[in-house]
């Protein structure tokens, strides 16, 4: 096999970086599913809003860091407004209603950004101070920006872990994920908790979107592509579980990235190169769904379901 080690390491890091993006989205979404039992298809729209706002603020202020810093609370605000105006009525409704209503929200947001910023994809560049490469290992340069994304992801994971396991609020969140009616019976202000959880999810999605700009293109509908992969992450990891979101995100991020990079050459060693040329990309794009199907077949509730849910 002619896959060299440097390429493997680079793709592994890319997989980790993509996994971070997935994790940021999955963490918020899995909590919303688990605690509020709300199917929110518009979560991807918050990612998209974060990306557009970061781009806009960066342009206005001339500073990438400031752009991201402003985009976060702005996306949080958008999320909270959406929650209060549109989503509150949906908590009591069945999943079908939630699916359809949030689908309507997607159409709305996609069109909104198209009106404001146009339909063409916007390409933002990596800020100068984060551009370039640094040496992970001798002979292996890795883009600094992507490495920063990975670090941000680890930091957020640690902060979330601290929040969920070490604070009263976190305790309520965990309790809510495993038994919703119980916490409201215990007197916790459900509405506040819900709004908080939703806002947290929105901020995380916004962060992912804000960081995504320089790496992926910013365009209407960018949220949906990643959203579906986020669903796969949550299904594999287990609904309501942050730990599941971490594991699921890494697994899916790796599988997708490594699959795209190596499935074709790997297949070419087994079957003929022209056939591998055809089958490779097809299998690569299907790989994470096949993975999801495999996990579901043996554990329908996911790998780490929030306790008490299975």
């Amino acid at each position, binding site marked *: 096999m002619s896959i060299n080690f440097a390429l493997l390491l680079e793709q592994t890091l890319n997989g980790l970086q993509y996994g971070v993006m997935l994790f940021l989205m999955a963490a918020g979404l899995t909590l919303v599913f688990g605690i509020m039992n709300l199917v929110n298809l518009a979560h991807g729209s918050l990612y998209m809003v974060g990306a557009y706002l970061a781009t806009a603020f960066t342009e206005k202020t001339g500073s990438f860091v400031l752009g991201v810093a402003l985009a976060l609370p702005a996306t949080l605000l958008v999320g909270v407004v959406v929650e209060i105006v549109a989503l509150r009525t949906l908590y009591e409704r069945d999943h079908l209603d939630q699916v359809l209503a949030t689908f*309507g*929200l997607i*159409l709305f947001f996609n*069109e909104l950004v198209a009106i404001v910023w146009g339909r063409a994809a916007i390409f933002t560049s990596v800020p100068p101070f984060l551009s370039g490469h640094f040496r992970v290992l001798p002979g292996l340069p890795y883009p600094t920006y992507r490495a920063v994304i990975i670090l941000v992801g680890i930091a957020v994971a640690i902060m979330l872990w601290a929040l969920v396991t070490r604070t009263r609020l976190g305790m309520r969140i965990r309790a809510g994920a495993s038994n919703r009616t119980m916490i409201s019976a215990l007197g916790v202000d459900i509405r506040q908790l819900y709004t908080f959880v939703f806002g947290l999810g929105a901020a995380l999605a916004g962060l992912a979107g804000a960081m995504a700009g320089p790496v992926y293109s910013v365009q209407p509908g960018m949220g949906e592509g990643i959203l*579906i992969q986020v669903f796969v992450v949550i299904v594999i990891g287990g609904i309501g579980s942050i730990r599941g979101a971490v594991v699921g995100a890494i697994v899916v991020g790796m599988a997708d990235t490594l699959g795209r990079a190596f499935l074709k050459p790997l297949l070419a060693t087994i079957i003929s190169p022209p056939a591998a040329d*055809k089958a490779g990309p097809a299998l690569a*794009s299907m790989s994470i*769904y096949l993975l*999801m199907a495999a996990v579901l077949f043996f554990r*329908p509730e996911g790998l780490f379901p929030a306790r008490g849910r299975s």
Partner: protein
Amino acid sequence: MAISRRTLALVAGGALLALVPPIAALTNQPFYLDLFRRMMIFAIAAVSLDLILGYGGMVSFGHAAYLGIGAYAVGIPAFHGVDNGWLQWGLAIAASALAAAVIGAVSLRTSGVSFIMITLAFAQMLYYLGISLETYGGDNGMRLAGRSRFGGPIDLREPAVFYYVVLAILVLLLTLGNRLVASRFGMVIRAARSNEVRARAIGFSPFRYKLTAFVIAGGAGGLAGALLANQTEYLTPDFMHWTRSGEIMFMVILGGMGTLFGPVIGAVVLLLLEDVLSALTTHWQIILGPILILVVLFAKRGLFGLVAGAETRDG
């Protein structure tokens, strides 16, 4: 025998649909024939979804996948010179039924939120598969080499003939569907939707029935896809895009889920709405989105309930 409002509404609807081609010819507006034919094709897709969504309570967000499979089951053979309609449409039904069997076998092991996400994910998987088929156009799709051939008087290149074929299929589907939901099989599906725990407690194992319904709906969706390919004479992976699944779902809800006939109205109204709105502005989706939200929040019963009276939906 008293004729219910429901029967009257159906007969009237059927008659109106049957009159479209002659009226279109008289007024020299072939566009309307094309439009209504398109609506009926989506009506077929919506009715097939209603079987599992409205009656079975299975919120499958990947139904458009079967339309895509059906379309490619026509397009790929045609690309290779095989334009026998019986073969193509038979393949469309069989392939989508098979896909539904596989997808259902995995997805139906879950329920609720997971089920929705999984059906969505599988449909997306097929969408990406479609994009990766470079030979058949990849994500640009491809033109249909020629409409399906059936021999004899059935020439789909004749607009009116094709129209009546679609109408006949729609009527057939509605008739069969009607029998299905009232049959023993249909009762199990509806009971499982009403109260799954109770259904299990009296001795039904719902999984096998749900899977069967899923396969039937998938096959019918595949047929709709074959018709759609013939209609547009162009097929792309977009047929399978999850937003299409959402559209079809909306047709079911808008028309009235669990009524079989409601989705027909839903298809007509939604496509008309999209047509009208897109004439107003290219940004019509920003209007459609909130409309859909409002329908979900306030008009859940759907239009068929308004037209045919309150007793449209039992059990």
